[in-house]
C-alpha cells in the first residue's frame, strides 16, 4: 500500500488506497481516495482485475457452447445472464419457446433475484455492522434463508449457482415432483422472515443515521451514466424492463415496481427489499399457473453447431437483479457470432462512484459502495 504525500497549500492531503483486497470492496476493486481528514476530496477507481475477455471468447465459441460461459458473468444470478442471450438468439433464428418453459424460466429468474438480493442484504449489513457485531447477525440470517433457495435449485437443476438451465428453445431441466411443495413452504416461511428483517433494521436509528441522506444520486446523473435497476429506481425513476418491455410471460403476472424519490443509500436498500416481496408474489402466481406440456421446442442438442443463425443484428435486454442486462449480437450468417456485446448493468452503475463519493466521509464509502451492490464478474466481463 504505497502512500504518496502531496504538499499543497501547506497541509498534507493523504492518498489512502482502498486496495483490491479490502474487506469491504465486494470483490476486486481498487479506489485511490484523496482524503483531507475524514472528508473525501477525490476518488480514482481502478477496475479490470477480473477481466476474463468473455466477449472475445464469444467470437470463437458457438452459441450453444457460450451459454455456460455466460453464467459466470453475474455469478450471483446466473439465469439472468443466459436469458437475454437466449432471447436474442431465438429472435435471430426465430425459434419458438413452449409456454411451460417460459414459466420455468421466470421461476428460476425470480428465485435467483431473491437469492442475489439476500446476498446484497447480508453483505451490506456486514460492512456497516462489522463482523464482530450486529452486522454478522443479519448476514447469517440472510444466508440462512438463501441456503433454502440454493437447495431447491440444486434439487431442480443439479447445481446451486451456475444453473446452465436455459437453452435455445426452452429449458434443459423439468421441475422435480416435490418442487411446488418445497417452493410454497419456502415462500410462506420467507414472508415473515422479511418482516423480521424489516423490524430489525428499519426503525433502528443506528441504521437510519448511517443510510439516510448519504450518497445522494440525482436522477439526471443516474440516467446519463446508464444506471439501471435498483440504483435507478432508488433515484425515483420507475423503469423496470419487466414492465416497460414485458419479455417472456411477465405480462401474465401482476406485481408493482417499487421506487423511492430521494436517491440515497436507504432508498436503494428499500427498493431491493420491496423487490423481494414482489418476487414472492410473482413466484406464487407462476407456480400456480404453470401449464403442463413440453419444456423444449427443439430436439435435445446433439452437436455444437446446433443452431444456425441468419445474418443480422439484434439487441435483447432482461431485468437482472442489478439492472438492464442486455446482449447485442452481430451475426454473419455462419455458425459463430461475429460480435457479442454484453451490456452488463454493474459496469454502468459503478461509473457513478467518483460522483457519489466526492465530499463523503470514509465511513460512508463502505455504505455507498455496498448500496450499488457491485458484482465484479459483471463489471469486468
Amino acid at each position: 500500500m504505497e502512500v504518496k504525500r502531496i504538499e499543497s497549500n501547506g497541509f498534507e492531503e493523504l492518498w489512502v488506497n482502498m486496495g483490491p483486497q479490502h474487506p469491504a470492496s465486494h470483490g476486486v476493486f481498487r479506489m485511490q481516495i484523496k482524503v483531507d481528514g475524514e472528508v473525501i476530496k477525490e476518488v480514482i477507481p481502478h477496475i479490470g482485475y477480473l477481466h476474463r475477455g468473455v466477449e472475445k471468447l464469444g467470437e470463437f465459441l458457438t452459441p450453444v457452447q457460450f451459454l455456460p460461459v455466460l453464467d459466470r458473468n453475474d455469478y450471483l444470478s446466473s439465469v439472468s445472464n443466459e436469458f437475454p442471450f437466449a432471447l436474442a438468439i431465438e429472435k435471430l433464428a426465430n425459434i419458438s419457446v413452449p409456454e411451460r418453459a417460459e414459466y420455468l424460466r421466470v421461476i428460476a429468474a425470480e428465485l435467483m433475484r431473491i437469492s442475489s438480493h439476500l446476498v446484497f442484504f447480508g453483505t451490506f449489513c456486514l460492512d456497516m455492522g462489522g463482523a464482530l457485531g450486529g452486522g454478522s447477525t443479519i448476514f447469517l440470517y440472510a444466508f440462512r434463508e438463501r441456503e433454502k433457495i440454493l437447495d431447491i435449485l440444486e434439487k431442480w437443476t443439479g447445481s446451486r449457482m451456475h444453473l446452465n438451465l436455459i437453452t435455445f428453445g426452452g429449458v434443459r431441466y423439468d421441475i422435480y415432483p416435490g418442487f411446488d411443495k418445497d417452493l410454497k413452504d419456502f415462500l410462506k416461511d420467507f414472508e415473515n422472515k422479511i418482516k423480521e428483517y424489516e423490524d430489525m433494521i428499519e426503525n433502528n436509528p443506528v441504521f437510519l443515521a448511517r443510510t439516510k441522506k448519504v450518497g445522494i444520486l440525482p436522477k439526471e446523473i443516474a440516467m446519463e451514466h446508464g444506471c439501471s435497476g435498483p440504483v435507478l429506481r432508488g433515484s425515483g425513476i420507475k423503469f423496470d424492463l419487466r414492465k416497460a418491455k414485458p419479455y417472456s410471460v411477465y405480462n401474465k403476472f401482476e406485481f408493482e415496481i417499487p421506487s423511492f424519490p430521494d436517491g440515497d443509500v436507504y432508498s436503494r436498500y428499500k427498493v431491493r427489499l420491496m423487490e423481494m416481496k414482489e418476487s414472492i408474489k410473482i413466484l406464487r402466481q407462476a407456480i400456480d399457473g404453470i401449464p403442463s406440456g413440453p419444456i423444449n421446442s427443439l430436439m435435445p442438442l446433439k452437436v455444437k453447431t446446433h443452431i444456425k443463425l441468419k445474418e443480422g443484428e439484434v439487441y435483447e435486454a432482461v431485468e437482472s437483479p442489478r439492472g438492464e442486462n442486455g446482449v447485442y449480437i452481430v451475426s454473419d450468417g455462419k455458425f459463430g457470432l461475429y460480435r457479442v456485446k454484453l451490456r452488463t448493468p454493474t459496469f454502468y452503475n459503478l461509473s457513478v462512484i467518483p460522483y457519489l463519493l466526492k465530499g463523503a466521509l470514509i465511513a460512508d464509502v463502505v455504505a455507498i459502495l455496498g448500496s450499488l451492490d457491485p458484482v465484479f464478474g459483471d463489471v469486468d466481463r
Partner: protein
Amino acid sequence: MVKALYITLKNLFRKPVTVMYPDKKREMPKRMRSPLFALTKDEDGIIKCIACKLCENICPSNVIKVLPSKEKNEKGRPYPEEYELNLSACLACEYCVQVCPDDAIVMIRIFGWATKNKEDLILKKEKLLENYEKYKDLISECTGEFLRKMQTPRRQN
C-alpha cells in the same frame, strides 16, 4: 430500537441450523452435477463408450480428448484407446453427458472430492473406469438418456 433486540432474543431460542458436516454428511440431491466423472461398463464388464467423439466436440472448454483404437472389442464395438478428461477447466455444464448416445460418460454425486497435485485432475481412462467401480451407486440421476427424454418436445404429463 427495541425490536432488533426482540428478534435476536427470538432467534436465541430457535434451533440452530448448522449441520455438523464431518459427522453428519449432507444428503446429496439426486441430480447433483459435481465435476467428477466415470466411464460406465455394461453388464459383462465391457466399456460402453464407442469413441464417437461427440462429447469432445460439444465441450465448451474442450477438456475431453478421445483417441479411438483401430480394432473392435469382443462385442464388435469400437472402443477408445485413450480417454482423457482434464477436470481443472471443466465447467460442469453437463453437455457431454447429454450428448453421449449410450450413457458412457456420467457424473458422480460426490462432494468435497480433492487431489493433492494438479496432475491427478487429468482423469485417464483407467481412473474413470475405476471411478465407476468405486462409486457405482452414487451415479447422478441425470444420465444422457434421462436428460434427452426430459427435453424431447412431445407432450408430457
